[in-house]
């Protein structure tokens, strides 16, 4: 095991898959000469040349759709969208085309492509560059949506996404790129078989008092919350959703059956958000086991402000999640640290 950043895990895995399979190419704005806005494609143009590392014009609908068409003829494009906010310009190609082509034509042609894109607030990027709109894609049958939170998961899931024959939206996060974690020794090798199973959530920390559910950056924050509350003798079980579609309901429902209470933390807005689906699933799957209402900690329902104090206040934090957990536990008289 070695310790690397989430960014490094993505970059090296992408490179390894390009070495492994001639049909894998990368496309996007500023990914070649500029080496990527967040340097995930650093060195790839130099190594693989412009045929396989394609700088695109600022035309998200055009180049995302071109990746779909190329995938229909057997290429395996990995598209980078600079941020998930820009996916809105390509949404017709993602939802009306990439997600539909396999089913709409009776299974004749698959669309083996990956759209990598970071979400995430907290970078003072303001209202249009800080949104977490993975919900839009998680809503759509035909798409697969992955949201890794650690370098190891990022590597194994990216490998799985590239090898999968369906269109995958691969959610990264600006707040995770510099986070570090252990990865298997062979993670960067073309022959690596460290491939995640798409459609599985994971219990990343075991606990007995309450279940805390998150994904992407919020799964990392959830683990921090659990570590802090452990010092106060509160035992938090953390579930990382990892795959938003398909959604592994059984894993978090089983956890809630064990703990009897649940808090969901999410970077997106609460109303109609990912957490709403999780909460609905918990009431259906673990109704008789719940000792308290399911609580959601989510972003304040405002366009993200630029000013730092306002931005910080709008986002869930270790403190606000901890408060929600303690209030949930005290509501049922369980225990409060």
């Amino acid at each position, binding site marked *: 095991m070695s310790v690397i950043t989430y960014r490094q895990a993505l970059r090296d895995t992408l490179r390894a898959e390009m070495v492994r399979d001639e049909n894998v*190419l990368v496309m996007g704005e500023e990914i070649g000469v500029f080496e990527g806005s967040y340097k995930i494609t650093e060195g790839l143009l130099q190594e693989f040349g412009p*045929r396989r590392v*394609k700088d*695109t*014009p600022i*035309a998200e*609908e*055009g*180049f*995302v*759709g*071109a*990746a*779909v*068409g*190329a*995938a*229909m*003829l*057997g*290429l395996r*494009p990995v598209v980078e969208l600079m941020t998930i906010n820009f996916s809105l310009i390509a949404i*017709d*190609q993602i939802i*009306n*085309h990439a997600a539909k*082509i*396999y*089913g*709409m*034509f*009776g*299974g*004749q*042609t*698959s*669309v*083996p492509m990956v759209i990598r894109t970071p979400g995430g607030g907290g970078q003072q990027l303001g209202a249009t560059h800080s949104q977490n709109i993975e919900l839009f894609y998680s809503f759509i*049958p*035909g798409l*697969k949506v992955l949201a890794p939170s650690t370098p190891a998961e990022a590597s194994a899931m990216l490998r799985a996404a590239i090898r*999968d*024959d*369906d269109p995958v939206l691969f959610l990264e996060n600006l707040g995770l790129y510099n986070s570090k974690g252990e990865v298997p020794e062979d993670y960067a090798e073309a022959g690596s078989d460290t491939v995640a*199973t*798409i*459609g*599985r959530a994971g219990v990343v920390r075991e606990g007995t008092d309450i279940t805390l559910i998150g994904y992407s950056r919020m799964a990392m924050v959830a683990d921090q919350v659990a570590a802090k509350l452990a010092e106060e003798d509160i035992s938090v079980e953390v579930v990382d959703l990892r*795959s938003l579609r*398909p*959604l*592994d*309901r*059984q894993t978090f*429902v089983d956890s809630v059956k064990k703990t009897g209470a649940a808090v969901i933390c999410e970077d997106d807005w609460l109303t109609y958000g990912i957490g709403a689906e999780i909460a609905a*699933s918990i009431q*259906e*799957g673990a109704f008789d086991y719940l000792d308290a209402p399911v609580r959601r900690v989510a972003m304040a329902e405002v366009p993200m402000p630029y000013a730092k104090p306002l931005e910080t206040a709008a986002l869930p934090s270790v403190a606000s999640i901890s408060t929600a957990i303690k209030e949930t536990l005290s509501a049922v008289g369980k225990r409060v640290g």
Partner: protein
Amino acid sequence: MADKAKPRTGAARSTATRRRTRKETTPGVSEENPDTLLDYYRRMLFVRRFEERTAQAYTQARIGGYCHLNLGEEATVVGLMTALQERDYLFTNYRDHGYAIEKGMDPKRVMAELYGRSDGVSKGWGGSMHMYDTETRMLGGYGIVGGQLPLATGAALAVSYKGGDEVVMCQMGDGTTNIGAWHESLNIAKLWDLPIVFVVINNFTGMGTTVEMSSAEPDLYKRGAAFRIEGERVDGRDVLAVRDTASRLVERARQEQTPFLLEAWSYRQKGHSVVDPAKYRTQEQKETARAEANDPIALFDAKLTKAGVLTDDKRDEIAAEVKAEVAEAADFAENSPKPDVSTLFDYTYATPVPNESRRMPADPVFAE
């Protein structure tokens, strides 16, 4: 052969303009093989009769959804498809029945798709707007205006990436030239030197909105200029003119590895779709659209008759054959089984993964 005369909207076109345009754009038939000419005639008639049968089945509620017909565009359909090699790829919009048949799909399976039956080309998952067949390389009718342009551009990218010598043809309607995907796709196709021919079918009306109402540059073939893409216009009522111009551009795209633009104009004989009575058309516009002088089959019939290629007996013989074949397609569709509900979840994902939902509407999320 290309027609660079400026056509105006259907209603405004004067008889004099029409005559002059026809004269300029009509290749002679004397050097052509009579059997080839009769083959074109037969294929155009087949599209006509197939679409008429489709409209009938639609009004009898055998066919559902939206249903857009190629009536009036038969010469364009046959001319364009004659220009393609079998290995070439085709993407179209939702007005795709004739293209599907002409690219090589079995008409019986096209009709079965219209009927929503299991023998349909897309097993009943697509319907009228979504004909698709990997084998004949008709890679889809698409229902979202402009949606097929980025896809076709990407298919041409894949051809280029693999070093193949196939060409991609991307058909669309006149209204499509104003959507963002048009500009983005033409730009990318030229930047990346892709072997693709974009074909605009100009019937002068996007649903009920005229080209002049929607396009600041109504000479649509000129609109590739912003991307340094050469464009030509052809009389879409003339099968030989369409064939010759399209063949030239397709082969140039293949040889030169660069995109081209072709505008083929003709008249949509009926409404936008089967259910559209076209009340927005003036009487004059309606007469223009349905005039024998603008009917590609009547025009070709007259030309072949005059040249002695098409006799009364031959005409009757072809008509009878086509009628029988269309009836056979309808019978096949009528008798094809409806898709089994047990196949509902078969085509959501190509790679099966855990936790895919197979929940029917009233099922609980957690089945016991």
